[in-house]
């Protein structure tokens, strides 16, 4: 591992410790919700990292279709996987917060439903990556990534309309309405820390994918030589 990446990992660990301290100790307890509100410092940054990963996935997929480098495909695969992980964290921390605050685990509200559909789309992307064979995988998954990315705004628009038509019973005001400056402070530290964690995970997964590609092509090369002999 390069010294620069080790430095970045150490920096991220320190940042993560500091931001956790900010979120759990420094930030004041929310008046009505109590301590459960603190999940907000993890929930929203995870959503941000997931969104960022899916955006990187989209850019890498377009780049793959234009230039056909197997490295951008590795980046697309890495970012989609990490994105799904963070999206899963969002979908798990959300209900944990919603149960005491809203009184229910889940409601078919626009943002919740869009996140779930987003998760479904990218899980189907990962399934396709698993089931497609050989070098076709890269083209097919790049194509599906573009479909998925185009679909997300349409999903959000349609579900927003669906829900404004049939109002949901338990949606209070947004959690961002008038945030305490100390809370905002803690929130931004966590946002930064989570973004760094996301970058590290994507980078690690990217290198792993590149190594996998190398192993695969070495195997193919070996098989070809064996066939010639």
């Amino acid at each position: 591992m390069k010294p620069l990446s080790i430095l970045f990992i150490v920096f991220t660990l320190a940042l993560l410790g500091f931001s956790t301290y900010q979120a759990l100790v420094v930030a004041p307890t929310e008046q009505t919700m109590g301590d459960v509100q603190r999940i907000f410092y993890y929930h929203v940054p995870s959503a941000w990292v997931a969104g960022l990963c899916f955006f990187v996935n989209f850019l890498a997929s377009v780049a793959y279709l234009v230039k056909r480098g197997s490295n951008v495909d590795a980046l697309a695969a890495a970012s989609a996987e990490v994105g799904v992980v963070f999206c899963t964290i969002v979908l798990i921390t959300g209900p944990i917060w919603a149960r005491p605050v809203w009184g229910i685990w889940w409601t078919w509200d626009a943002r919740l439903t869009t996140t779930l559909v987003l998760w479904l789309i990218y899980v189907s992307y990962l399934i396709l990556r698993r089931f497609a064979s050989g070098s076709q995988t890269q083209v097919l998954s790049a194509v599906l990534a573009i479909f998925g990315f185009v679909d997300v705004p349409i999903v959000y628009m349609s579900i927003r309309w669906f829900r404004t038509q049939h109002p949901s019973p338990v949606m209070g005001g947004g959690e961002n309405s008038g945030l305490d400056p100390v809370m905002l402070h803690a929130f931004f530290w966590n946002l930064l820390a989570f973004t760094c964690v996301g970058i590290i995970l994507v980078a690690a997964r990217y290198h792993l994918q590149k190594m996998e590609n190398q192993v695969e092509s070495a195997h193919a090369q070996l098989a070809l030589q064996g066939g010639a002999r």
Partner: protein
Amino acid sequence: MSSLTVTRATLWKDLRMEWRSKDAINSMLFFSLLVVVIFSFAFNPTAEESRLIAGGLIWVAFLFAAVVALNQTWARELRNQVLDAYRVSPAPPNALFLAKALGNFLFVVILEALMAPLFVVFYQLRSVGPAWQLVVVALLGTWALVVNGTFFAAMSIRTRSREIMLPLILFPISIPALLAMVDSTTGILTGEFSPDFWIKMLLVYDVIFTAVCLLLFESVLNAE
């Protein structure tokens, strides 16, 4: 060869093959008939209730039935390497795609026309809103399912688990279209709200995804 000639020739060939074998339409018809019967056992609705749930039932039945036909779209082109022959020919790829999508569109529309009376009889449906709008919803919604379905069928045929893959990648992408179809149908049947937004939304969905399909089909056809 012009695009139009290729589209027309491929479409005509597919329609003729379907007319002789009736593979797709028969399996779709029987499949959706089964869904109608099973759903009516499962829910046993009154006329009032069925108006509320019919939108969902009808479109879920047609969606599942359409997958049956979509999966067969490219299968026969794999035999005797027809698809490979197509790739080396100078014919434009999008002409082939449009012919396949139009063919599937026709099959599913015919299925819907045949099944609609059965739904009316089994679920005692009577529309409170203007029923002609259902035709608009059906045409736009069917194209939404079929254009992406034909495209994803071309993708899933290249994976290891051919038939299983199609619904797995088609359904998540189709969620907004399905939502629009179901809710506008409910709106028309109950007469409680206007389906105008959903019809516009389907139109937008159709235009966007037809464009994306035409843009990317060549990559999928030539995927190595």
